[in-house]
Each structure stands twice: as C-alpha cells, then as structure tokens.
C-alpha cells in the first residue's frame, strides 16, 4: 500500500502531465477541430451576408437544426450540475475525480448553446434590443435571464473549487510552463495559501453554490422547454415539456460526461483515478434516467394519443409511421431501451459498454431535440400541404462547428487547467484509506469471532443466525 504522500505526488504528476507533455497527436486533433470550426465560421459569415435565406428553414418550419443544437447543448450543460452539485450535495464518495470535467462541460456547453440562439436570429446585430426593450412576459426573456444566471453561477462553481488546484499549479509548475500560463495560475490562484481559514471559507462558498446551482439548472431547462410549451401547437402544448427537457438534459449531460471521461482517461492514462467504479455508477444513473424518460414518453404519448384531439392524428402519424418514424424509433429503442439493457446486463456493464450506451444516448437525445422542434412546427395549422425541412450544408456546417468548438475549448483547457480536483481527491482518498483501515480491523475481529460472520454474509442477514443456524 502506498503511503498517502506517494499517492498524492503521483496524482499531482499525473494531473499536471497534459501541461508538461504534448504529442503530435494533440496538434493533429487541434488542427482538425480548427478546420471544422473554421468551416462553420465561414458559413456563418455567408449567413451574415445573405441572411437566414442560406438555410433551409422557411416560414412554416421556421426553426430547425440551430434551435435543436441550442436545446441539445443547454441539455449537455446539465452535466456539471448533476454530477458535481447533486453528488456533492449527496456527499457521494466517488465523485471527486470527475467533478472538474463535469463543471467544464457545463460552462462550455452553455456558451455554445447560447451561441446557437444568436446564430438562429434574423437580426443578430439587434441582440441588445433584448436588454433595451426586453419584456419579462416573453419565454425568450426567461431564457436570456436563466441562461445568463446559470452561466455566471456555473463559472463561479467551476472556479471556486479550482482555486486550491490553481495554487498547486502555481507552486509546482513555476518555471516549467510559459509566462502566459504562469500568469494565469498566479492571477487565478488569488494568493491561496491553503490555510484552514481559507479552506473553511472555500467550503462555505462551495456549499452555497451547490445549493444555488441545482434550482438554477432546473429552471434553465424548464424555460428552454417553455419556449415551445407556451405555444398553441399540437405536440408542444403540454405541461410535460418542462419535465421532459430537464430529465433529457440530465440524461444527455451524463452521457456527455461519460464520453469525455473515457476519452481523457485513455489519452492521459488516468485509469487509476477514473475507474470502472465511476463508469458503473454513472451508468446506473444513466439507466435510471432512461427508465424515467421512457415513463415520460409513455405518459405523454398515451394521454395525447388516447384522446386524439384535432391535429393529433397528423402529429402521431409523422412520428410513429411516416417521415419521422425512423428517428423516433431510434430514439426510443437505441436511446432509451438499449442503454438500460447495456447497464443491466452484467456482461455488457463494462467501461466500453457504458461508453457505447452514452454515445447512443447522446445521438438519440440530439435526434429527439431535432424531431421535437421540427415535428411540432410541421403539423399544418391551416388547410395547406405540410411543409418539409431538412438542414442544408450551411446549417450542418455551423452545427458541426458548434460541436468542434466545444471540443476545442475542452482540448485547450486540458493543457492549461487542472482537470482533477486534486485537493478533493486527496480528501476522498484519505477518507477511503481511513475507512479501509477501519474495515480491516473489523474483518480481523470478525475472523477471530468465527465463521458465522464470514465473507458472504452481510451484517444484516447474518443477524438472525441464532434461530436459523440449526
């Protein structure tokens, strides 16, 4: 068994590895991302010149891929809140190594998501009208308010627990990294010395932010759904949308976190810290959310389909039988049912299996966002032929650049910021060590006490042994 100091030193060395070592693969990947982002930027420049005319959206289906991407990314941004805040609130003892990644995902996904709203605007240069003439009665304003609040809160929530680690970087990497990064660490570490008072204050701040950020996150995903829920459209005009969007956000946030954890683990050899245990626990969470999503879907489509109000026939037909049936069944089968199966079957409940489930979930959730937007708009309101829409090259390019930019931000971040909460992991490790020692003592005593309390019998079921032994 390692001594605590050795363990910590190894952790620091592993954590700072990306800032010290950069391979050609990194530059290749960075170049690839810049290429995709650049193409999107070029296409957006074209859109800026000619207007939304360059997209395939038209009057009857007036929202499309951009809005879907907006919902998807705001959904992904739930990752930090769920993992970090909820697990912190629940004091789960396995979260420390993944909270930082989750918090970065939140901040970046939110920035990209908000960007898609601007991309979707007909007059982006008038964005400040929202502040000059804003009406609080409008769901769009609720979004503006909720997203800016959430972004602020999540940046604080990302930054506060990072201060001790930034201080660690400042001390350990002095002279080893360039002037820019040294400056960043020096400035952001805020003179952190690691005194008990500082830790106490930091702990308080984190606790407060933990409690604040969960309701904010729930509100964000609710108001995103209310952009649609506040209209009179068949398929959107339902109170379940808030719940569906919040659950879907947690769902895709978890999935994104699993994917990015797996990538980082493999790239930087962090197997010791991001273990199968984290994947399994996140997998369990993913599966329970999938079950909840199935329940929401049944609840919604049963209550709407049973009554079959005006317009419902068209809405159901396009979703279950016609144009969107492929997407819908992919979402239900591969996005909800298969991930549950993967997690529940012990044979597939491996890191690889859970990552596959996460990829399926993210794909399905993106598809769900897309068909929710498009099918809602497609139901004819008046006697006209239903419109058709499929995103064109410009829209796909800009959407892809959103994903690329998200990856780019993370890729650059890995090289600068500590991706592990070293101090929290150390605390967790210490606690675990203490626990192990206590357990060993117990086991030792149990071994002395005799076979009655041996390994296979848990303390609870072992209790009535007096009666059942004979």
């Amino acid at each position, binding site marked *: 068994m390692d001594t605590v100091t050795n363990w910590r030193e190894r952790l620091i060395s592993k954590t700072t590895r990306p800032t010290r070592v950069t391979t050609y693969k990194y530059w290749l990947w960075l170049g690839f991302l810049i290429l995709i982002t650049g193409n999107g930027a070029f296409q957006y420049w074209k859109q800026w010149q000619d207007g939304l005319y360059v997209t395939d959206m038209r009057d009857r289906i*007036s929202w499309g891929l951009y809005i879907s991407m907006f919902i998807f990314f705001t959904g992904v941004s739930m990752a930090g809140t769920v993992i970090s805040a909820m697990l912190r609130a629940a004091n789960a003892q396995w979260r420390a190594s993944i909270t930082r990644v989750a918090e970065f995902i939140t901040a970046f996904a939110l920035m990209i998501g908000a960007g898609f709203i601007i991309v979707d*605007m007909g007059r982006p240069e008038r964005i400040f*009208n929202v502040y000059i003439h804003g009406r609080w009665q409008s769901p769009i304003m609720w979004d503006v308010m909720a997203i800016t609040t959430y972004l602020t809160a999540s940046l604080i929530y990302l930054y506060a627990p990072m201060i001790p680690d930034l201080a660690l970087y400042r001390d350990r990497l002095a002279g080893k990294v360039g002037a820019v990064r040294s400056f960043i660490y020096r400035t952001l570490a805020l003179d952190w010395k690691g005194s008990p008072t500082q830790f106490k204050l930091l702990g308080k701040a984190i606790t407060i932010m933990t409690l604040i950020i969960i309701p904010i996150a729930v509100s964000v995903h609710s108001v995103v759904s209310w952009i649609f829920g506040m*209209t009179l459209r068949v398929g959107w005009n339902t109170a379940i949308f808030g719940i569906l969007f919040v659950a879907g956000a947690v769902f895709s946030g978890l999935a994104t976190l699993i994917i990015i954890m797996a990538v980082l683990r493999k790239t930087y050899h962090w197997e010791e810290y991001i273990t199968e245990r984290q994947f399994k626990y996140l997998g369990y969470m993913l599966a329970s959310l999938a079950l909840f999503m199935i329940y929401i879907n049944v609840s919604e489509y049963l209550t709407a389909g049973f009554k079959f109000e005006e317009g419902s026939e068209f809405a159901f037909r396009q979703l279950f039988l016609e144009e969107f049936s492929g997407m819908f069944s992919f979402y239900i089968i591969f996005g909800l049912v298969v991930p549950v199966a993967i997690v529940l079957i012990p044979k597939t409940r491996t890191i690889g299996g859970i990552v596959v489930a996460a990829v399926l979930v993210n794909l399905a959730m993106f598809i769900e966002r897309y068909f929710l937007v498009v099918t809602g708009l497609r139901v004819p309101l008046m006697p006209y032929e239903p*419109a058709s829409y499929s995103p064109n090259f410009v829209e796909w390019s800009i959407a892809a650049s959103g994903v690329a930019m998200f990856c780019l931000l993370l890729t650059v971040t890995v090289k600068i910021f500590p991706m592990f909460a070293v101090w929290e992991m150390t605390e967790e490790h210490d606690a675990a060590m203490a626990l192990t020692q206590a357990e060993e003592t117990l086991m030792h005593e149990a071994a002395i006490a005799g076979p009655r309390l041996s390994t296979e019998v848990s303390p609870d079921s072992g209790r009535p042994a007096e009666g059942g032994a004979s």
Partner: protein
Amino acid sequence: MPGPASTTSGADVTKRRHQAKPRARGQAETPVSIRPVSRREALKYITMGAIGAVPLMAPGGVMDGLVADVVRGPDATDQISVTAPATTKSGRIRQWSMIIDLAKCDGCQSQGTPPQCTTACIEGHFAPQPMEWIEVYEADFGGGGTQFIPTPCQQCENPPCVKVCPVGATFSTPEGVVLIDQERCIGCRICMAACPYDRRFFNWGDPPIPPEAALADYQVEQQVPATRGTVMKCDFCPEMVRDGTLPFCVQACPNDAIWYGDLEEDIATNGRTIVKASRLISENNGYRLKEHLGTQPRVHYLPGHGEDVGRDPGVEGRMPTDWPWIERAEGAVSWTR
C-alpha cells in the same frame, strides 16, 4: 399586451383631437338596421372623427402634430410611434374588425384571376414574394365541397404572438390591431411558432423591393419597405381607414365578400353597403377560426361555399398568386414558403 395605461393615453389624445376638429354628424348613435347606404356615406361613417392618415412618404416634420406616442412594452419610456387611434364622435376608440362572407367568396375562380384580395394587398403593401398576408385557403370546413377561405391576420384580442415577443416589437394598438415594428424585431421567430393561424411571414433574405417602395419612409402601420430578418404580416390597414378609404383587400374583392368595420360603433361596410356589424354576424351564424383556442380573433367568418357566386362547391383550384412588381425589384431574392 395593451395595458390600461396605453388605452388611457390613446383616449387622451383622442379627446384633444376631437375638441380641435369637431366633425360630428348627429346620426351615428342611432341604431342602424341593415339598409343600403351609398359608398360615400359609408366611408363617412367609418372615418367619422378620424384624422387624415399619413401619406406614405410624409416627412416626419409634417406628422409631428398628428402622431401620438402609444405606450408599449414594459415601461413608459419604451415607445413605438403609431398614429393616434380613430375614435367615434363621442370619443370612443374604434375597434377595427373584419367579416368575411364565405358564401360570396369563390377564390376569384369564376373570373379566372388570382384571388383579387391577395393581389391587391401585394400591390398595395409590396408584400415580398412569397408572402400572402391575406391568403385564400381551400378547405372542406364541413357540409361537403370546397370552401375558399380568405385569411388575413386574425388580429386576436388575446394574441399569442404578442405575448411571446421578447422585445415588444409586435403589439396590440388601442384600435385592436396587432402590428409589428420591423425596426425593433430581432428575428427570433417565436411569434411565428406561437401564431395558430400561420399568418406570420419572415424575410429570410433581402426581400424584393421595387424602387417606389424603397423610397418610402418606414411606418409601423405600413411596413414599407420590408427589411431582411424581420417578421411581417397583415396590418389591417388602419391608416387607410382613418384616411377614408378601405383596406386593399376589401376594395379589390369583386364579390364584396369582405366587410370592414368598427365594433365600437357596430358598423361594417364592404364598400357597397353599410350594415350593423353584430347583426350581420349573428344573423348569418358568423364564427371565428379556432375559437376554442381563446385567441379572440377580430376576423369573423360567415359560413358558405361561394354559393352566392353560383359556384360549384365540388370544383377546386384557382390561379396562382402573382407579384406584379417583382420585375422592378432589382437584385432581390425570393423564396418559397
């Protein structure tokens, strides 16, 4: 949503104007039964107490005395300039309304032209292709056979589009008309998602604008010239009615199927006859589109299949809409709906 404050401000303006220009003609308060009245007389009723409308290219200075700021949006500093509302002789604000007689509408099939309401609207407003602010839908709305339904903006009293606008670019006027300020619109298109009648149109690209429209001084009530990235729709032509003429669609209808009127004074005219609006609606079993949604449209429909025109309700089809000035609009793009 129009708050009480805005209504008050409209009424104040009205009062002031009314004292300055007393144009009362005694008879208006008498309940009017359905009887033929000359067109000239009808227009007098409609414009009674109203000020002259602003010419399309009126310079701002001339309008200063005529324009009142109507308070819109979240606070009193947030104003969009629209012309003061028309009032009855007793100072009540007129409530514009439309009654469309489907028994008289045949989608201009019998005369072999595109629907004349749509055409006139496009010519008068330079509505960019492919926008049909008043669109003639063909539907089977019950009773068998085809029905032609001219559909302008329904001018809801409980407008879903106004509720969702984040910047107050679309708003209800004291006259009950829903307008859009294209100089404020940010192009988020949530109003298009919210409108249950598919009556809102977006300028996806640089809209086609003929030279005569390009010179116009932009007014919220006229929406000329159109600008890219903003939403447009039927504006109910309140400025034309204040000026003593009827909206383009009403003027153009060869079958006199479209009635325009004032619910406050309870009169309506199709340009040939003047009637009591409420009676016209109730005696002909008038209804409104999607009444169950609670949007309270200001456009009423009288059921029918164009039978007054002598049309066979089993026959469908009509001429496609034309944008006659589109050739004069240089360098513009157009799109399909």
